[in-house]
């Protein structure tokens, strides 16, 4: 019998890895979906238990050496408060979107491909969980490619509804591979200097270098990693792959990606910038905080402006995602406790808010057949619960008080003033105004338009879709009213990050 408690960190990755491969053999019908729900549900339960174990133990982190190889030779999985939190977000959103996927995927993907779809779907979640849990730099690259390859395939599966899914997926594949290759190069250069792949050892070796700030190999590693990570987390102006990929992907896939994929990219940036290079190098010796802040601010403004111009609600939300990544990046590049905590809180808040909104759009696509804003006109009369969820999520994007978005922006603005960056506070407020404009576009269409054509015949979404939508949107409201758990976790995780050790 396997000792679940002792092997918890490994099981979080191993169970979906095996479950994903086995999903290929589940045949047709409802079985692939049921299997996927079971596997992602079990994984979510494990991450919950992981979080509980960590909180109970009171230790700063739990280390797990795969195959009992000492961590400097083998691969170490290390769970601290930060990645336990991110694991919870990824596995939780993964589970809820899987529950939702049945009707939506049944509608959008041909029946004979469901087993393959869910296999790839579970493997994508596996990759994201693996990146988050591992303490080994090369392992990050391998799992990054697992999650990326599966995501390319998931996006391409939108081809039966719109062939542009294929070009969107190929574009993401090429840019994503270039980004991942840069990360691989950066890890290689780091290994040349430190002779190790373990993140903690890397950090210790780097700190031992007398000429860290001028060592050319370290500088090259830093540059490659910064560009590669920015591509992966879709930081403006390296976001060009994102809007089309989210627009043409199957609805459930858009929700999963928007909620988790770029967030895990941000998590990698945490690990590399704060954990391996250390705050002193990343944000004081190097001017990266200025570069990141500038890119983030430009991203907030320009992608919100781009969102306002869109005719398709999905593309609108995709551009809004690029802007929200801007908030997250701006938060951690302040490198002060409030900023970093805001960044971590916003990872969670944006995951539930945007995940819920993409799910609601999926329900609309299921009933109406499209997500053009013209299709949304007057839809609130036909699908009040779905539209209500979309509107509430929209308020969260604006950062309306009593929504989760407000909490993150509060932290961000506090952090900006703490760092004497009042300019950023202005950008955050201006970004919220722009968000108001594009969210209003949706609300106006849904609540004040006249339904025509297919919209007029639409029925309310089925319960199997409404429940997941409202779980996510409900969470975004709940953690807006009572942000004790998220706020405290993020503050403690931020203190850990700024403390230095990975």
């Amino acid at each position, binding site marked *: 019998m396997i000792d679940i408690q002792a092997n918890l960190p490994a099981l979080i990755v191993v169970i979906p890895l095996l479950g994903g491969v086995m999903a290929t053999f589940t045949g047709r019908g409802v079985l692939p979906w049921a299997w996927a729900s079971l596997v992602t549900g079990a994984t979510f339960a494990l991450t919950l238990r992981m979080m509980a174990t960590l909180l109970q133990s009171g230790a700063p982190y739990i280390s797990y050496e795969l195959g009992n190889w000492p961590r400097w030779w083998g691969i170490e999985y290390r769970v601290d408060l930060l990645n336990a939190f991110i694991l919870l977000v990824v596995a939780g959103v993964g589970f809820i979107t899987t529950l939702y996927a049945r009707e939506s995927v049944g509608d959008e993907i041909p029946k004979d491909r469901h087993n393959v779809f869910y296999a790839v779907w579970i493997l994508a979640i596996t990759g994201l969980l693996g990146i988050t849990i591992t303490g080994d730099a090369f392992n990050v690259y391998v799992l990054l490619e697992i999650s990326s390859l599966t995501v390319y395939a998931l996006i391409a599966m939108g081809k039966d509804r719109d062939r542009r899914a294929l*070009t969107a997926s190929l574009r993401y594949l090429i840019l994503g591979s270039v980004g991942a290759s840069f990360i691989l190069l950066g890890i290689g250069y780091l290994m040349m200097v430190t002779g190790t792949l373990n993140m903690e050892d890397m950090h210790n070796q780097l700190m031992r270098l007398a000429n860290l700030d001028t060592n050319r190999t370290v500088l090259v590693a830093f540059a490659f990693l910064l560009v590669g990570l920015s591509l992966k987390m879709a930081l403006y102006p390296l976001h060009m792959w994102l809007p089309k990929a989210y627009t043409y992907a199957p609805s459930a896939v858009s929700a999963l990606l928007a909620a988790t994929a770029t967030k895990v990219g941000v998590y990698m940036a945490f690990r590399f910038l704060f954990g391996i290079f250390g705050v002193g190098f990343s944000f004081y010796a190097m001017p990266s905080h200025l570069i990141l802040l500038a890119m983030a601010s430009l991203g907030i403004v320009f992608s919100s402006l781009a969102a306002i111009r869109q005719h398709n609600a999905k593309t609108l939300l995709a551009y809004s995602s690029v802007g929200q990544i801007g908030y997250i990046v701006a938060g951690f590049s302040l490198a002060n406790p409030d900023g970093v905590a805001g960044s971590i809180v916003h990872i969670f808040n944006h995951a539930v808010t945007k995940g819920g909104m993409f799910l609601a759009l999926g329900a609309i696509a299921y009933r109406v057949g499209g997500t053009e804003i013209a299709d949304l006109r007057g839809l609130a009369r036909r699908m009040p619960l779905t539209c209500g969820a979309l509107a509430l999520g929209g308020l969260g994007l604006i950062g309306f008080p009593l929504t989760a978005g407000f909490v993150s922006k509060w932290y961000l603005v506090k952090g900006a003033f703490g760092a004497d960056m009042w300019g950023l506070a202005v950008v955050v407020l201006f970004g919220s105004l722009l968000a108001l404009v594009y969210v209003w576009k949706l609300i106006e269409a849904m609540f004040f338009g006249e339904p025509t054509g297919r919209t007029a015949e639409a029925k309310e979404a089925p319960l199997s879709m409404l429940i997941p939508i409202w779980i996510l949107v409900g969470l975004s409201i709940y953690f807006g009213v009572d942000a004790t758990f998220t706020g405290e976790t993020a503050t403690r995780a931020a203190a850990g990050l700024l403390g230095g050790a990975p």
Partner: protein
Amino acid sequence: MSELLGIYNYWIYVVLMMIGFYGVIAKKNLIKQAIALGLFQTGIFLFYISMAVVDGGTAPIWTTIGDGSIKALGPYDNPLPHVLILTAIVVSVSVLAVALAIIINIKWKYGTIEYDEIAAMDRASGGGDDD
């Protein structure tokens, strides 16, 4: 000068990678883009292999010598990057496979693999969203 020539492996890696990078950006044929991507990643393999080299090193073979103890045959190259790059080669092959699978589907749905023609068809079909 000898310093520059002594690290010629690294020069080759950078040149290979940049040829690939140029191809990814400049080529309009999707297959050529995929090949260029492969070249780009191959350059990185060379980089990893080059950094494992030890002066006068051989293969990392440990064997029993006269008195029964186990020793290496001599100084040997670092085997770890070789192992890592085996993994990366597998990844690169998979990326190429997924890319080709998508390109085949593009050929089926669009009837062409020229990026310009595909973009023109997308614009014609009313995808009004801009980049």
